[in-house]
């Protein structure tokens, strides 16, 4: 029951992070903190619950609620060129959780590796081919286009890493995936 409440809360948190006034990037394309929420979901809840939270969010978006960045939502999201990025959050959060929570206590290098690999690399690996196909571009051209978003994602990864380790000190209860793994291993 606690797992369900935590996943629902995180799904809602990612939705809210997408609605907050965001940092306007040069060129007027707004970026939101939504992917920060994805990284945190994996890092804090672990792979299964983290990916589950994002999957919940996607179910509600597909059902017509405007929960993605700046009130976008509905089935149209999955028909557009950024569908791969949004769906890539699910494996992304999973990989973040898998690497970050591989040991207890958490190690900083693992948090950095997991957040960058899962939160940025996996998401781009899912998003770029879909975008290239939808827009009729080559993969290299799609990569070039998305370079503009990389600094923003790097900043979000840095915030996610800092927040994860602050939360570890302030409120360690939710990091149960890593703790339970260690407890099971020592038994």
């Amino acid at each position: 029951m606690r797992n369900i409440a935590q996943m629902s809360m995180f799904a809602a948190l990612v939705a809210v992070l997408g609605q907050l006034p965001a940092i306007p990037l040069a060129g007027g394309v707004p970026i939101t903190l939504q992917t920060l929420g994805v990284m945190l979901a994996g890092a804090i809840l672990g792979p299964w619950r983290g990916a589950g939270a994002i999957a919940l969010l996607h179910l509600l978006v597909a059902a017509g609620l405007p929960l993605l960045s700046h009130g976008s939502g509905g089935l149209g999201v999955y028909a557009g060129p950024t569908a791969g990025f949004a769906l890539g959050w699910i494996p992304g959060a999973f990989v973040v959780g898998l690497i970050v929570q591989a040991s207890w206590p958490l190690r900083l290098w693992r948090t950095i590796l997991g957040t960058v690999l899962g939160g940025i690399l996996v998401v781009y690996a899912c998003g770029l081919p879909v975008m290239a196909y939808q827009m009729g571009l080559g993969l290299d051209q799609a990569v070039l286009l998305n370079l503009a978003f990389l600094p923003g994602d790097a900043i979000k990864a840095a915030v996610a890493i800092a927040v994860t380790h602050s939360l570890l000190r302030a409120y360690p209860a939710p990091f149960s995936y890593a703790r339970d793994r260690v407890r099971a291993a020592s038994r």
Partner: protein
Amino acid sequence: MIPLYRAGDSLLHRMPVGPKFLVIFLAALAASLYRENLWVLLAIWATVLIGFICSGLGLGGFAAQLWRLKWLVVVLVIPQLIFLTPTEAGFNVSRVLAVVLLAALFTLTTATSEILGACERVLRPIDPQLQRVGLSAERISLALSLTIRSVPVILSFYADIREAQRARGMRPSPRATVMPLLVMSLRHAEETAEALAARGVR
């Protein structure tokens, strides 16, 4: 949180969720597979226009949806014109727009509750398989409704945090906002879990 659904009583509104979804899915698939075919593209655009008129949203609703997609158009058009010829760019942009508008038509004419109900009906028969991996249709429904309920709760947490920051003359930074938001949300999840357990939900 206002759903994107527009209430109405048109043919599209009354169509059952499953077939409506299937028609739109197949049309989108056709548009992606026959991407160079002008006739397929024109057929999709015709479907979109007829759909908007039949659904009672009219051309005004169509224009409103197009306006919602203004960012998408900008993001689509600029790189296309850099990398591709104008004809290719025109094809690609109009194809993506048509498919997105078609999908929007589904969202506009189907109530969220109806879609979630259809989801549950699909999940029910595979409940034994779901339970083998620790899920159940009931739990998924509970999680979905908890999520919907949590969005306004978290928004009110955010308002509290901003107010406290303003009182101290703090500038909002992502970290100083996300950190308390996380702790408050996770505590709230804990309380929700306890409240559910106290009511005998397992």
